[in-house]
């Protein structure tokens, strides 16, 4: 079950020796499958990095590529072709999974552009640290955390507190609304990034990093509230 990674990526086709672009999964000349490319997820679908994507077209292309790359098509091929089919299909699936989801797509593009993402924002231990809380929400987050703690205590004691529950439901609605607002803002930045020049892109990039952080923070809160209410 273990394999050692081969480093070399030939630019000449292994079968017909015709040179081809490294990111092509099939030789344009003889149509034989090629080792996985070093290109990004966008290039797998023949796209340049962008944020607004036609999801129907993406799915069609995913199906088309799956039909020709999938290991099922190489059950009787040479060992090399089998291995490339496996690696190419894994790349295709990873790419599709990332690009079809708006948030994953945004995060991937930000990483690709070298933006520093703050992974610790997702960390539970760090969340109650006041410096991590978005400044405009300090008070509400403080209240919410108090209520969550009370709710946990109530559960432990086996008590029902309809009033507290009502208030948490309200808070959940509010924070869900805030997540929606972030998504809206993100989409606006997508358009700027996709159409803008280098300077506009740089500004949009910074805005999106902040928005993605904020969104992650908010959806973790919503998740916590949902978990407590669902118990």
């Amino acid at each position: 079950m273990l394999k050692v990674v081969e480093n070399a990526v030939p630019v000449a086709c292994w079968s017909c020796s015709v040179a081809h672009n490294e990111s092509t999964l099939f030789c344009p000349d003889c149509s034989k499958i090629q080792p996985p490319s070093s290109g990004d997820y966008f290039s797998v679908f023949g796209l340049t990095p962008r944020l607004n994507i036609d999801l129907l077209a993406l799915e069609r292309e995913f199906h088309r590529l799956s039909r020709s790359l999938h290991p099922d098509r190489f059950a009787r091929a040479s060992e090399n072709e089998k291995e490339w089919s496996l690696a190419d299909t894994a790349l295709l699936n990873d790419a599709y999974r990332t690009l079809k989801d708006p948030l994953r797509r945004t995060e991937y593009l930000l990483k690709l552009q070298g933006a520093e993402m703050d992974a610790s924002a997702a960390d539970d231990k760090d969340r109650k640290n006041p410096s991590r809380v978005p400044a405009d929400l300090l008070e509400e987050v403080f209240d919410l955390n108090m209520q969550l703690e009370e709710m946990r205590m109530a559960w432990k004691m086996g008590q029902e507190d309809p009033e507290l529950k009502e208030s948490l439901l309200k808070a959940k609605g509010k924070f869900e609304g805030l997540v929606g607002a972030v998504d809206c803002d993100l989409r606006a930045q997508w358009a700027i990034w996709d159409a803008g020049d280098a300077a506009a892109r740089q500004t949009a990039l910074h805005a999106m990093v902040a928005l993605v952080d904020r969104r992650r923070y908010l959806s973790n809160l919503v998740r916590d509230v949902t978990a407590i209410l669902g118990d």
Partner: protein
Amino acid sequence: MAEAERAVVVGIDLGTTNSLVAYMEGDRPVVIPGVDGSNLVPSVVALDPMPASGGRPTVTVGNSARKALIETPERVIYSVKRLMGRDLEEVRAELKFFPFRLAGDIEAGEVPRIQLGELRFTPPEISAYILRQLKRNAERFFGTPVAQAVITVPAYFNDAQRQATKDAGRMAGLDVLRLVNEPTAAALAYGLDRAKEGTIAVYDLGGGTFDISILKLCDGIFEVQSTNGDTHLGGDDIDNLLLTVALDEIYAEHGVDLRAHPGAVQALRKAAIDAKIRLSTERAAQFDIELPNGDRYQREIPRAVFELLVEPMLKRTAGPCKQALADAGMTPEQIDEVVLVGGSTRIPAVRALVDDLFRLSARGKKPHTELNPDEVVALGAAVQAGILAGASKTTDDMLLLDVTPLSLGIEALGGTVARIIQRNSTIPASATEHFTTGVDGQTNVAIHVLQGERELAADCRSLARFDLKGIPPMAAGLPRIEVRFLIDADGILQVSAREQRSGKASQIEVKPTYGLTDEQVENMILDSFDHAEEDFSRRLLIEARNEADAILAAVRRAPQNPAWNELSAEEQAAIAVARDRLVLVIQGSDLNAISQAMVALDKATRHFAELMMDAAVSSAIRGKTMNDAGKEVDETVTAPHAMAPAEFK
């Protein structure tokens, strides 16, 4: 076309209770019957008595092994699928449900061994015997060697269970081209004849496991959206429930604790299974059993009572269904079709639950049950075999895109899990992680890989501990080891590593610490497979003669059995005629004639075999035989039983 390209690829359903082999006959999948004419081969393996001349005893599989369960229970094993890919601790937990012996001197981390008579076997070896029987059935059917197969596994099987299944294939002399998830296989079998668009849910409640899968069908592409399940939920649990109720009542009403007679428990279980099956078609079923003290235990179970009993158990399938819908981002109303798979979906209460979960009758829909739920998985495996073989126009346009059922993670600081591949990711899928050293000059890094959805490593299934060895000695934190995790199309993890700072890619050795090693599998490959192809027809002939000899020996002993006298004179005469015919043809070398004579003799003796089974079962209830069965079973014996009638009438 080269010979190798024309070789047939078969599809195999390696089930907990029964196994089947099927192939594509043109555009249609067809199940290949065994020598006794039955499509189902019970997943039961028996070790024949030690030959007086020494050497290894032979192994029998299927119906004949099932008969040995009564006479020599210590040499028989069934439901071995429950032990596949399990470590010692997990198997110990299963032993509660199993009247079988484990070799005592196995250390933690080793693959458990099952003691059968004087020999011991790993679970993959036992499965290999079942696979070899199916392979032989197919070879007899085609008259040519069969070396390539697709094998199905429960969708919720983890990495180790999948690897064990593949190992079993290799031991049986099969090149396993693909492992396919059972519910997905069922969807393929159904997808052949229906409109090729829409979303379907496959509800698969089998003997030991429950799976739910949601698929999107689009122009021949079967794209699994989500899957969920419970590997410890199935028809076995219903049997256990009925058995427990009966045992309690017998104790309360007659003061008899049948648990002291494991053989009697097995026989009572058979009665419970019969009752369960009858309740799918009738309003009530009866128990009528003679107890060791001469009393009779008589009880009628109305269907309403049965449904009340099993309701909590059946409800446990609702959670996975709802989770699968949520993961697919769908509501029940968005499911166009529901397909029912597995023998337990014959229970009316199960159908009612499915109807409610997916709001079927409210939408004027009915679940699909057109294909035999015992055969549909094997038929689907044959379709996938056809896809891989590229053999048919029907399957050329079909492609299956399946998902990994469980998230893959690695243990991080503080015993938490860092998830690297999410559940329901389309496979093959991959993730790359970077590791470094914590001490100057450190040359090893250990990685703990887990499968599961819980936050803490201790709550997830430990998949493997990988040792990265041969890291060039550097200052702490300086090495940059890139580890690539790849889940292949079989759902099995591959791990590769390279050190980037020094570029010594191939120096990093990745060593998993579970399951059988390649060398072990190599040594367990069942004998007598490596016959050259020219030997093939000779081998088939020898095998058929051996099989015929075994049947004839059993028939010769028959008149000594009390059950023989219950046969009519006509039946006895018919057996004699069929026996003489077989004696005659095994002298010759006409394989077909021998096969036909065996089928005829099997048919002629079927009633006798049933009488013998009944006699053995009732003597077991009276505590006269089988007292050895399940010596190690604990107080609450709840073994799944292999004596369930293979077919429903």
